């Protein structure tokens, strides 16, 4: 089964049809799932921004980086799981259409880059966070990771909004 056939098969599932509004009486489902997606992304984005602004060194200066990340990351990941599940449900409703949309591809490229950025940060400078937990300004690599994450996630939210506009 090639990718296109797989996406077609996803679209043909009863859940996809219901979300697409193709099942009579279920046309409220897409708005509901989308609203859940918006609330989840609001929490993902804002918790990431709070940590990023601390890493850049312009906000929450009185909080240690390790403590702030320990308290924010559970919110980020919980909301991310909700966003991923609701996003998958939205995706299968028009899988071939979304897959063909360049904005959709760009959004996932940016998410991949945000993931790489996060991984490099965690395996790198964050391993020695005890040395710079309360330093202002934070080390250059930490500031770079924070700034890159801010830009990438803003781009991800913009592209997500644009997908809804044109898909």
């Amino acid at each position, binding site marked *: 089964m090639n990718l296109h056939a797989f996406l077609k098969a996803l679209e043909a599932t009863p859940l996809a049809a219901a979300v697409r509004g193709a099942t009579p009486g279920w046309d409220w489902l897409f708005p509901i799932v989308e609203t859940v997606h918006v609330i989840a992304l609001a929490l993902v984005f804002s918790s990431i921004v709070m940590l990023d602004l601390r890493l850049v060194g312009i*906000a929450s200066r009185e909080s240690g980086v390790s403590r702030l990340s320990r308290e924010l990351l559970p919110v980020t990941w919980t909301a991310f799981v909700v966003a991923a599940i609701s996003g998958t449900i939205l995706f299968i409703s028009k899988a071939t259409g979304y897959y063909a949309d360049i904005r959709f591809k760009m959004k996932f490229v940016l998410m991949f880059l945000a993931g790489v950025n996060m991984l490099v940060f965690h395996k790198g400078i964050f391993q020695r966070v005890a040395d710079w937990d309360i330093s202002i300004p934070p080390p250059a690599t930490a500031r770079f990771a924070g700034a890159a994450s801010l830009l990438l996630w803003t781009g991800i939210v*913009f592209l997500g909004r644009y997908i809804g506009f044109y898909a």
Partner: protein
Amino acid sequence: MELFRHFAEWIGSTALNEWLGENAWIIPISQSIHIVCLAVVFGSATVISLQLLGIGRAGRSTSQTANTLVPWMYRALFLLLVTGTLQTIAEPVRQLVTPEFIWKLVLIIGVLAMTIIFSRSVRRSPAAWDSPATRPGAAKSFAVISLLMWTTIVVLGRLIGYTWAFYA
């Protein structure tokens, strides 16, 4: 609602509405800024409420959290007002004829008033707010009610995009 409909039709006849129609790239950008700002407001409100309920402190007192986040909420709310107004001028009928839009505005005014009262009280007596023992009795109610109001505002805002077709 008839009054709102006439008002919406009048906005639809203005030059600004026409200009936004001709420059179709503006509204998607405005909506993207709108969603980024709503994330800032919603996230900040969530952190403040959770701290008042005793969940998560990041080594900061209630007054430090509120004094840091509330100004960001005001800035984001200002941008939400600007972008929201722009979107209403571009698509007046979509916005103004839905009960969801009216309810959303009412809730925003209500929760904004609550936030201003909260923030001013924290600035006046930070020490009282920083200890759960001396905090005003309404602190937990404020935390729960304001978070529910913000959630409802986001839900109503998203629903406007779907329900307007029924009312128009």
